[in-house]
């Protein structure tokens, strides 16, 4: 059963440049899918079309049997509530505490007034602590986010996405700003989210090996077009070269 289906997706910010061209793919519920591709290929744009943070021009996105393109404002908020998002730079509110940042994930379920007054139910708070504990950062719950390390901040970001109780989590280069050991912690957590909690993950990645190691499927994007779609093991050196348009040797340097 496909959770997300993308058909003939096209997007251009300006008239002269097409960022995404006729993108087609499907993702099943519970899958862990990575998108790889060179800088500027359109990975971030792709992700943002799915929850309409960016409006797309052509094609169709079907999420959970809903036509994403046709939603009105209210339905759109509901859609976004169903889709969590994790960012490269974590995008936490730095002066607020960890727990407050996590609870921001509940906004989609709240009226304006509840949100503005900061009214959260006890269950929501319990749930937030549960998630923080699961990701091993409960002891920092009352710290301000800007006092945490990058890896810890990213885990707060993941908690914020999880508390939305989403069906899908979109991750835009979640480990690009992290050191190798924190990266591993984060990727392991993401993987367990998809395997243990059954939440679908769609992750933009720069590192081919990481993608191969963690993903059920990999999508290779180049200049806005899908040039590869398959399992990690199917990704040959040629195909990598096709995606990145450069030598494998030069690439693996890092």
């Amino acid at each position, binding site marked *: 059963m496909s959770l997300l289906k993308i058909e003939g997706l096209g997007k251009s910010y300006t008239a002269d440049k097409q960022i995404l061209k006729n993108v087609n793919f499907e993702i099943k519920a519970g899958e862990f899918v990575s998108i790889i591709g060179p800088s500027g290929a359109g990975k971030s744009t792709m992700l943002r079309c799915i929850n309409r943070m960016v409006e797309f021009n052509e094609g169709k996105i079907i999420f959970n049997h809903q036509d994403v393109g046709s939603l009105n404002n209210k339905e759109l908020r509901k859609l976004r509530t169903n889709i969590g998002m994790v960012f490269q730079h*974590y*995008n936490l509110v730095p002066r607020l505490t960890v727990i407050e940042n996590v609870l921001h994930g509940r906004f989609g379920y709240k009226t304006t007034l509840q949100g503005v007054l900061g009214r959260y139910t006890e269950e929501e708070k319990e749930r937030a602590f549960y998630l923080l504990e699961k990701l091993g950062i409960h002891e920092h719950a009352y710290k301000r986010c800007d006092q945490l390390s990058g890896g810890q901040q990213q885990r707060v970001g993941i908690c914020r996405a999880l508390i939305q109780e989403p069906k899908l989590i979109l991750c835009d280069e979640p480990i690009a700003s992290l050191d190798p050991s924190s990266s591993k912690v984060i990727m392991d957590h993401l993987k367990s989210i998809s395997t243990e909690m059954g939440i679908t993950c769609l992750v933009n990645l720069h590192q081919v090996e990481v993608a191969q190691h963690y993903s059920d499927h990999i999508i290779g994007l180049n200049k806005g077009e899908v040039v590869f779609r398959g399992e990690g093991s199917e990704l040959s050196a040629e195909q990598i070269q096709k995606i990145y348009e450069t030598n494998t040797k030069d690439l693996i340097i890092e």
Partner: protein
Amino acid sequence: MEASYIRRTKDGRIHIKSGSKGDQVVRWTLIILLVLTVVGFLLFNYTGLELGSAIAETAYNLKVMFLEPTLSHFDLGEAVYQVGITLGLAFLATIIGAIIAFFLSLMVATNLAPAWVSRIIRIFVAVIRAVPTVLWVLIFAISAGLGSEAAVLGMLFHSIAYLVKAFSEGFEEVDKGIFEALKSSGANWWHIVRSGVIPTTLTYLLSWVFLRFEINFGVAVAMGAAAGAGGIGFELFMASGFYFDLREVGFITYSILIIAFLLEVISTRLKRRYFPATSN
């Protein structure tokens, strides 16, 4: 052999300036300011000016003011009360101004409001700022009658204009990522303002409000008197314009100075203690 990367003048001397646009603009701005200053001095109207005696007299007046301050037309309690009124006027104009400016600047910040709304309010604010405060006070004295309403409303306009500029710049510096993150969790505009914008800018906003309070105190001295709201400025005006009592002017000046110093000290203390990270 001459290396091509060396730039030389016609007579073969080596340039060391890049001659960029920024440098040019700096140079021309300085030159124009200097020229205008010189022209200004040439055009000034000097009638009735006798520099020597004027300076001596000023020195004498300052001496009388600052070395022999006394109160003759009212007592210390009255002085404290009048200073209190001036502070009150400044405080009201600041606090009401800050609240209104906060909402207006939400509509001015380009990352929170549509461009056309932002532009309209910007122009509006620029015009308001350019109208002299005295005129605002007059207008409100006429419509609201003499009293604190006229003073506060008259001062309010400049406070709003000033704070809108400062606040909206603060809002515009909020990380785009925060907006994106909150939006993607289904937050609406008010949620974003409440949980993203306010926490990240609060200390910045407060430090501007403090600064405006200091400024408003100075303004309230003059405007409280004109608007019939009283305050220490009224006494200052009477002492200098009607009684010609320099000693009293001196006393009043001291009391204003003390308050101004106190405000400055308190605000730096507060900033240092509670908002150490205000230097954005």
